[in-house]
C-alpha cells in the first residue's frame, strides 16, 4: 500500500474502527452505514478526496445480512490516490444516509441505485426515478430479478425452475 494512503487508512481505522481489504493494490475500507457521511466528509475536507468517481452497489442475494454492498470510489486529485469505501447493508429495507450533501454527484448516482437495487438513501433531496419508467416495479439489478427470458427446463431441473417461474398470482 502507498505510504500516503496508509496514513489515511490508519486515520479511518482509528476514528471509525473500519476494517480493510486489499486486492491488486486497491484498498477497500469497510464502513458502517451510520458512519458514511462522516467518513466522506473527513476524506473530502482533511484528506483532499475531491472527486467521488463512482458510486455503485453489489447484491449478494440470497445472503441477507449483509445483502448489499454500497460502493464509493473516491479519488484525490491533489495526492493522486484512490480509495474504495464499502458499506454493507442488510437486505430487509436497505437504508443508507445520502451522500448528496458531501458530493453533489451522489444525487443522480443514488437515484440510479434506488431504481436498480431498491436501496433507500435517507434524506435524498430528489428521490424520483431516474433511469426507469415511473410505473416500473421491482429493481432490475437485484440478483433475484430475472433477466427477462425464460430459463430452459430439462427433466432433471424441471420442478426446481417451475417453482420460481413468475406465474400470475391469484
Amino acid at each position, binding site marked *: 500500500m502507498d505510504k500516503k494512503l496508509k496514513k489515511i487508512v490508519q486515520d479511518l481505522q482509528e476514528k471509525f474502527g473500519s476494517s480493510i481489504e486489499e486486492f*491488486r493494490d486497491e484498498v*477497500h475500507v469497510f464502513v458502517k452505514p451510520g458512519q458514511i457521511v462522516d467518513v466522506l466528509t473527513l476524506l473530502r475536507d482533511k484528506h483532499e478526496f475531491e*472527486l467521488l468517481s463512482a458510486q*455503485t452497489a453489489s447484491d449478494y442475494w440470497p445472503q441477507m445480512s449483509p445483502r448489499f454492498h454500497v*460502493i464509493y*470510489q473516491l479519488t484525490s486529485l491533489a495526492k493522486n490516490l484512490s480509495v474504495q469505501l464499502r458499506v454493507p447493508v442488510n437486505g430487509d429495507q436497505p437504508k443508507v444516509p445520502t451522500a448528496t450533501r458531501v458530493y453533489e454527484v451522489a444525487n443522480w448516482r443514488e437515484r440510479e441505485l434506488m431504481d436498480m437495487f431498491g436501496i433507500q438513501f435517507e434524506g435524498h433531496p430528489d428521490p424520483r426515478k431516474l433511469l*426507469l419508467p415511473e410505473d416500473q416495479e421491482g429493481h432490475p439489478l437485484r440478483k433475484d430479478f430475472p*433477466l427477462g427470458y425464460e430459463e430452459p427446463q430439462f427433466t432433471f431441473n424441471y420442478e426446481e425452475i417451475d417453482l420460481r417461474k413468475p406465474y400470475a398470482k391469484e
Partner: protein
Amino acid sequence: MSQIEEVTIDQYKHLVSERALTGETMLLNMGPQHPSTHGVLRLLLELDGEVIVNAIPDIGYLHTGIEKNMEAKTYLKAEVMTDRLDYMNTVGNNLAYCMAVEKLVDLDVPERAQSIRVILTELQRIASHLVWIGTFGLDLAAMSMFLYAFREREAILDILELCSGQRMMTTYIRPGGLWRDVPVEFEKAVRDFIKTFPKRIAEYEALLTKNPLFLDRLLGIGKLDAATALQHGVTGPMLRASGVDWDLRKVRPYMGYDQYDFNVPVATEGDTYARYIVRVQELRESLKIVEQALNKLPMGPVRSENRKFVAPPRSEIGVSMEALIHHFKLWTEGFPAPKASIYSAVESPRGELGVYLEGDGGPKPYRVHMRTPSFDNLSVVSKIVKGHLVADLVAILASTDIVLGDIDR
C-alpha cells in the same frame, strides 16, 4: 397497456421556483426528440420569457440494461456489450473493459498489442472529437463544419474497418491483447491520415476559432468553476476547461502512455469557448501520440501467451493436445476469475471511464458497473444553464459532448 397518467406539476414541485406554481413562469418540454439534445434527452425547462430559470434533465430513454446483461455472459462475450455504451468511443470502451478483466485475472499484454491499442484509441478519440466538433458547429448554425468533420472521421472508421472488419462496433481489443494483428495496409493508412490531418485541423480553426459570430455565441456562456465541476464529478475535457489539470493518461499512465511525449491542454475560463479550445488542441495532441506510437511500434505477438485466458492460435490446435483443450474450454465455458472486485479507469474522450468489475470464481462477471463520464457531465448542466437564454442552452449542451448511450447504459 398501462394508462398514461397526466403529468402534473406536483412531481416537480421541489425542483422549480415558486413562480412556476402560480403560473408566472412557463414550463416547457425540450425533447426527447430534439435535434440539439444529441440523442433522446428530455429537458423540462422553466422559462421566464426566454431566460432559463430551471432546467430538469430527464434521462433513461435509451436504458438497455447493459450491466444486467453482462452478468449473464462470460467475460469474453460480455465485451460486445461495451461497444454499445458510448457508440462514439467503441475502441476506448473495449479498452476500459479489457483492462479491468486483465487486472482482475492478472493477465499480461504484449508490448505490440499495447502500442496498437494506443494508436486505435487515440484515433477513436480524434473521431469522437470530430463528431463533436461537427455537431457543435451544426448546433451553432455552422453547417459546413459538420460536413468537413465527417469527411475525416470516415478515414478513421476505414482504418478501424481495416483492422477489425467493423466500422463502429469493433470489439477488436480483447482481454490479453487483440483479436489479431493489424494488416499490412494499416501503417500506410495511418501515415496518410497523420500527413493530411494537421491541415484539416487548421481548416476547422480557420472556420471557427476566431469567427466573430461563433465567439459571440460562446464567450462567457455556461461558466463552470473547478469546485462545482469536482462536486458534480465532471471529468475529461470539461474539467480541464475549468482549469484542473487531470488526465488519467498522464497521472496514472496505462498501456505505456508514459513513453509518449504529449501535452494536456488546459484552459481556465470554464466557459463554452474554453471547452471548444481544449478539445481542438486535444486533436493535435492525440495525433502526436498516434505518430510516436506508430514510429516505435515493436514487432512481436499481439496476444498473451497465457493459455488459461487467451485462446491459442489456430496453427497450434492441429499439433498440440493442450492447445485443443484450451481452445475448447475457453470457447465453451470461458475462463474463471477470482472472487474479488477491482475498479479500473481510462481517459475516454469524455472523461473518466471506469469499470467496476467483480468476479465470483466462475466464468461470468458477478457485477459490472460502468462509470460513464457523460452521466456526471450532464448532471452539472442544470446548474450552469441558469440565467441563460434557450439558444445558449443549445450551445452549452453541445459543449458538454454527451452521448446518451453512455448516460443511460
